[in-house]
C-alpha cells in the first residue's frame, strides 16, 4: 500500500532528469495538476502503457497538467534501468515529460510506491486525489473501459474528486536495493 492517502500532500523530491536538469515540486508550482508516475525502462507493463502516458501529457499540456515520471529501479537488478539507458529511452520515445532518476530510492519509499507504473495525481493544492493504475486494459487501449488517470485529471482540473479515488496498481514490482 502507498504511504500517501487521498487528501495527503505531495512529498517533495530533488532528482536529476534525463534532460540534464534537476527537478523538485517547486518547478511545477504553476501547474494545476501534477501527476507523479513511478516507472522504468524495462517493465513490460510500463512499455504497454508508455504511449498512453505520452498521449495524456500531450492532450493535457495546455490545461496546466504535468506528468513527472520517476525511475527508482536498482540498476544491479535491472541493468536496463541505468541513467544512460533512461536518457536513451527518453530520446527514442520522445518523452514529453521529465524522466527522473531516484538512485537512492528514497522518493519511491517515501511515496510507498511498489509497482511500475504506479500513478499519484495531485490537485492544485498538491493534495492526492487519485492513486493507482492508468486505465483498466494494458494490453489493448481500444478495449479500455475505465480511463482512471484521465478522469482523475479531469476531476482535479474541475476542482473536485474523481469518482474512482484508488485502484490497485498493476505492473512490475520496483526493484529495491538489498
Amino acid at each position, binding site marked *: 500500500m502507498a504511504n500517501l492517502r487521498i487528501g495527503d500532500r505531495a512529498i517533495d523530491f530533488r532528482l536529476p532528469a534525463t534532460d540534464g536538469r534537476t527537478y523538485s515540486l517547486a518547478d511545477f508550482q504553476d501547474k494545476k495538476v501534477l501527476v507523479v508516475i513511478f516507472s522504468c525502462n524495462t517493465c*513490460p*507493463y510500463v512499455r*504497454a502503457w508508455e504511449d498512453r502516458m505520452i498521449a495524456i501529457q500531450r492532450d493535457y499540456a495546455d490545461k496546466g497538467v504535468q506528468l513527472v515520471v520517476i525511475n527508482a529501479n536498482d540498476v544491479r537488478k*535491472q541493468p536496463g534501468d541505468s541513467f544512460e539507458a533512461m536518457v536513451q529511452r527518453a530520446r527514442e520515445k520522445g518523452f514529453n515529460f521529465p524522466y527522473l532518476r531516484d538512485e537512492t530510492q528514497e522518493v519511491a519509499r517515501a511515496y510507498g510506491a511498489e509497482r511500475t507504473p504506479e500513478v499519484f495525481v495531485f490537485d492544485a493544492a498538491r493534495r492526492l486525489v487519485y492513486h493507482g493504475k492508468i486505465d483498466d486494459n494494458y494490453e489493448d487501449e481500444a478495449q479500455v473501459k475505465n480511463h482512471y488517470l484521465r478522469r482523475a485529471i479531469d476531476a482535479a482540473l474541475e476542482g473536485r474528486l474523481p469518482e474512482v479515488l484508488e485502484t490497485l496498481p498493476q*505492473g*512490475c514490482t520496483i526493484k529495491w536495493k538489498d
Partner: protein
Amino acid sequence: MHIEFLYWEECPSHEEALARLREVLAEEGVKAEIEVRRIDTEEQAQAERFIGSPTIRINGVDIDPAAERQTFYSLTCRAYTRDDGRISPLPPVEMIRRAIHAALAQERA
C-alpha cells in the same frame, strides 16, 4: 509434448498467461501436461536460464524465437512483442499457437 511454464510470483501476468496457454492448447486439441515451476531466487533464474516471467517452453524451446538471443537471466517480468509491434507482459496468442504448431510438426517429422 513437454510444456514448461516458468514464472516469478511478483509478475502479476502469470495467472492470465497460464490460462491463455491452456486455452490455446485446448483450441488446438493438444492434450499435454503443463509443468508449472515457480522461480524464486536469482540462483534459480540463472540455473533455469530464466529471462523473465512468464516463460513458456515447448519441448525445451522457448515459444518466442527471439528469446535465443537473450542471455541475461534474472527475476524480472518479461516483455513480449506482439505481431503489431506493441509490447505486452502476456505471451501473444499467435506466438503460443505458432510454437505449438512447430512442436507438432517436429514431432511428426
